[in-house]
């Protein structure tokens, strides 16, 4: 069964989704089979690609939409929310 989950999160850390936060985010996505799209202002990036995410230029205060499509979507969602939490509370800088 293939799931399609969409979540919206706000990025709160100082440097945004850049450098290490972006690296950790994309690495988390890579652990799952699901296709993961990150969207900001009509632009879309592959969540598993650090370079693609950098292109979106997600800065502090931006809201992003994450679309997860695939059989392991549910567990991917949980892992993504966990990593976003760590990014937002400054655990990953």
């Amino acid at each position: 069964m293939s799931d399609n989950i969409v979540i919206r999160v706000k990025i709160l850390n100082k440097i945004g989704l850049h450098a290490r936060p972006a690296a950790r985010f994309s690495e988390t996505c890579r652990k799952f089979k699901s296709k993961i799209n990150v969207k900001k202002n009509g632009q879309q990036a592959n969540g598993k690609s650090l370079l693609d995410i950098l292109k979106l230029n997600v800065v502090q205060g931006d809201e992003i939409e994450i679309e997860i499509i695939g059989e392991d979507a549910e567990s991917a969602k949980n892992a993504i929310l966990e990593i976003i939490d760590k990014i937002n509370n400054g655990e990953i800088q």
Partner: protein
Amino acid sequence: MLQLKGTVISPGISLGKAFILKEDNKASERTKYTIEDFYSARNVVKNFISTLMSSLEIQAAVRDILDVQLSILDDPELEGQIKKLLDNGVELINAIHTAFDYYVNALANASEYLRERVIDIRSVEDLLIRALRNNLVIGIPMSNEDVILIAKELDPIRTIMIITMQNIKGVILEQGGVTSHTAILLRSRGIPAIFNVRGIFNTVKNNDYIILDAYRNVIYVNPDNKIISKYSNIINVINNINEEILKEIVREGLDINYPIRIMANVNNIADLELALHYNANGIGLLRTEFLFFNRSYPPSEDEQFNVYKQYFLRFEPKTIIIRLLDIGGEKIPPYLRIPNERNPQLGLRGVRLLLRNAKDILISQIRAIVRAAREVKNSIVILIPMVSFVNEVLEVKKLLNDVIGDNGSLITRIKLGAMIETPSAVLQSDILAEHVDLLSIGTNDLTQYILAVDRESNTVNDMYSQFSPAVLRAIDIVVKNAKKVKKDIEIDVCGELASEPLAVPLLIGLGVDAISVEPPNLPIIYYVLKKLNINEARELSYKALNLSNPDEVIELVKSFFIKKNIKVPQVVGEFV
């Protein structure tokens, strides 16, 4: 002999022979690579970076770069693009270039922060291609001779190698970003560096003798023996200042109970980064002129807001004293029309110019600062330049109050300050103190107006000295007058005198609350401060106030330093 300058990235002085780092794009014999070659090159680079990460006792900053670079190597989109290009018949090396170009170009319009990360990405591309060509180890010379490395640009990987090489004493780049990882690395290892030195790459040859003075922003190419021997003296002195003490000071910064607070003068991002690195107590003078020069129209309120906010955030939550546009004298941007004056130094400049000819700019600047202040936690002081009449302060204060309105929390967080640079401001400092929260004594202009000496004049400039007892008396008057009417008013000193190690005991002794220092001078000022006590400083400053001329003041402090075993370059040999 040739003299060059650029942007000081990491302060210090070094001497050595030039080594020019050339790009070596040797064409490889092989042209037929497959995707398998890409995979094996990628593994080589991953191993290489992992080895660097584990073998160097490196700090967090370096580890972060390498960490991100490892993640780029595993990027599925990058790999996908390269594969697709190969399938379409593109040769591997071109495919790698094309794929990286795509991402780097996409970042071209991003923030300055992100643009400067481009070099970290390019460095991965460079390593991949070197690995394909079995040319991973990068051509930096190993020798026993001291070397100053000169290059167009330098990526963090090569910078890490430089850091580990004992014979590389300094770095000069033709380009280079001030917040780049390269800059951070050099600064954290105390390797003197100057970036943005126009033309150096083409004018200097291998083995030219170089003096890199990143305290004063001068590079000498093939200087004469006299200069070399003077610098050799200075280097000895600097090395004698115990490195451990400097490290400790940088680490502990201002948590040590110094008799006064040490802030930094900031002209641009490079200064800001250095001030952060040395843990300054705040920005004592944020000059805003850089936003207004080299352009044909003034910056909009929005543009100013963005820049101010960026600076404030970087220094959050420390105090920032930001000076309103201080233009006048000779350099005037084209959009400010000022009639030719017989004596511009006594004409339309500083707050006079803002109030009379550029009120729209003044208002946009105040609005931008207040907007930026609203979004940060810093305490912000708006500083009025070149005050000579109390009315000027009242007019700016009214404009500021109109912009702030009745926002209670902003009223307590945004303060007003007046520069003391004119004799009238000194003599009316008690009245000024009633209207502001801070007085900042700018010794450069104050000296010229107190002594009535033009420091640009060939006939009298030798009479210009900020160590003049008259200047010290002016500072003494300001402190006494202002504190008499308002006990908690803050009195700062900015200007060259505040960055001068010999002046430190005098300024403490006169009772100022803070000094604002050029960032490269912060460690030496900390060092001097650590060795002083307030009573000795008071005694010394009283003596100085009663001397007759600047030379006597300098001699008084020098002999005090020698007695106290305070070793600063000024005590041993004059700077060239």
